[in-house]
């Protein structure tokens, strides 16, 4: 028996049906940007090979997340710990690059002690991936050991086979999702199955991640950092859109009679990132921050966890206002082992 299939016309209805028993997230186009939103949301659901602006990680490590709030009004003083998740969740339309990042975040956020909020979201969220061919000019997921056509770490894989989506459950969690949709799925035709099987990645697979020198001492003084730093404006857009970045700050803020403590995404590209009480700042030059970002992603992380912290989504390259992309950096780092090699180079 062939896997189940759902005609595209019935998708929104199916999603709303699922939403009765759990929180459903899907990419929604609103005001010109594509973002994961909880349904129902204003704007159209879009299931296609287009990356959301903010990566999937936003649903596991939110941009801003309350820890607790305190009220200081007379007669109402008290403290409220942030509420835990209410319902299980399912995310539709996640792409291979984004899903792969969860395996890069797990060693950090599920280490000892684990980030409880992240852990709960990981356990209680099912992922319905969308098979993708990595067709964007910026895509190089295939260079990062990711198969966008069959993303690892998903519970169900959807494949666009024309007028319908093929549903393929890969895990127990995934089968349960399909059970909830039982009656709405029909058996896929042989043609549809063939279309699904022919999905192949066209993402660039020649970005030489593996050729980056293992000893960062070789790269510490490279002219590459000066070259990048002169162009970089330190905006941090790369880090905020990067699926594998996880740095956050904890801040307290008072408004009127209420104050909140919250976690909020931070960026190593901000000049105040390493500023300490007293004003000392070990990374107070742009060059040192640019170097740190790339060495962290491509070397420090991989020395500790075995894989570079990059999934080849290319968001940094697309959105950098001055045209810096990690693919270019990887290529230049991999080319030479001696400092000064990249002087004047620009390809």
């Amino acid at each position, binding site marked *: 028996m062939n896997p189940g299939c759902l005609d595209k016309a019935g998708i929104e209805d199916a999603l709303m049906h699922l939403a009765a028993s759990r929180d459903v997230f899907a990419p929604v186009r609103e005001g010109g940007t594509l973002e994961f939103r909880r349904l129902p949301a204003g704007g159209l659901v879009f299931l296609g090979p287009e990356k959301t602006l903010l990566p999937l990680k936003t649903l596991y490590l939110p941009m801003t997340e309350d820890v607790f709030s305190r009220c200081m009004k007379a007669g109402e003083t008290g403290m409220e710990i942030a509420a835990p998740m209410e319902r299980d969740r399912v995310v539709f339309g996640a792409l291979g690059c984004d899903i792969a990042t969860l395996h890069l975040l797990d060693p950090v956020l599920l280490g000892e002690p684990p980030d409880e909020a992240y852990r709960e979201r990981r356990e209680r969220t099912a992922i319905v991936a969308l098979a993708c061919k990595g067709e964007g*000019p910026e895509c190089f997921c295939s260079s990062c050991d990711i198969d966008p056509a069959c993303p690892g770490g998903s519970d169900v894989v959807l494949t666009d086979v024309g007028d319908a989506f093929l549903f393929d459950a890969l895990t127990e969690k995934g089968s349960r999702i399909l059970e909830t949709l039982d009656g709405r799925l029909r058996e896929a035709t042989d043609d549809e199955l063939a279309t699904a099987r022919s999905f192949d990645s066209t993402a660039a697979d020649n970005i030489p991640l593996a050729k980056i020198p293992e000893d960062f001492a070789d790269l510490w003084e490279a002219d590459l950092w000066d070259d990048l730093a002169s*162009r970089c*404006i330190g*905006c941090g857009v790369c880090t*905020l859109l990067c699926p594998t970045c996880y740095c956050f700050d904890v*801040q307290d*803020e008072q408004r009127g009679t209420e104050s909140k403590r919250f976690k909020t995404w931070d960026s190593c590209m901000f000049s105040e990132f390493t*500023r300490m009480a007293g004003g000392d700042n070990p990374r107070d030059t742009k060059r040192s921050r640019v170097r740190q970002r790339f060495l962290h992603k491509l070397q420090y992380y991989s020395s500790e966890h075995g894989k570079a912290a990059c999934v080849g989504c290319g968001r940094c390259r697309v959105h950098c206002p001055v*045209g810096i992309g990690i693919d270019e950096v990887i290529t230049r780092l991999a080319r030479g082992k001696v400092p000064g090699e990249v002087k*004047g180079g620009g390809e």
Partner: protein
Amino acid sequence: MSEHGMPETTMEDNLRTTAAEFLGRTPGACFIGYEAAPQGGTRPVFLRSAGDAGRLVWNRWCYANLTAYLPEMNGGEGLIGIAVKGCDARALRELVRAGQIERARLFVVGLPCTGLSALDGDTLAGRCHGCMYPEDFVYDATLGPMETPDLPHRADVAVEENPAGKTVEERRRFWEAELDRCIRCEACRKICYACYCPECIFEKTDPRWSSRRRDHADKFFFHAVRAMHLAGRCIGCGECERACPAGVRLMLLNRSLQRDVEVLFGYRGAGVDENVAPPLTTVSRDDPEFTVERTSP
């Protein structure tokens, strides 16, 4: 090809020659210009040797305002060559008179821009409406006459350009929705030529004026305060909007403020007239009186 069968030199060729000559005769100098970006379009490039001048390009996709790099280089050594469009030259004038870079260190090459392409097509970029070159600006070299081109006037587009709405309530809802997209990356601030404070108010932690709480009040504070700090200094280059990954229409706000200073104080624009001080650095006894009655935007 000209009738003699020799390729005509383009403006781009002249730019490369000019930059190469400058770098060749000035050891220790750098030249800031545009190069082709691998992903299409252009990006800034810092050249340090004459042999690299071939990387320079000049076309309708040269968006960056390269003068934004100068304040950081202030107080350093070596001459700096820089390619500037008309709008960028206005920024340069503002930076020099604010003491943010010494004119004597600069070798300014004027690019006679007649308008950039919109990011998504061949039409004129929105930022180029109301183009105004600086008056009586002294360039060290130009690739052609540096004169304001005949492009649609700001006034013509300003009137239709009020998606925010005619009532206060409509505008409130518009900006609540528009700023909801903002992710508080502050790329708009980092790319702006006028944001050169060594310690920006948004970087201060003691006191902390602005958290990254990312709710509407937080975003309102950031954008309102930044707009105020730019009042009378914005040159309308539109780089803030281009840098924004979320497509927040910041130029609506900046242009609204520019219209205000024009109406209130007769100020034509930052960097246009050498003899007119930026409006928020001076006062006049003849300023209008403050009132809660507002004229519609």
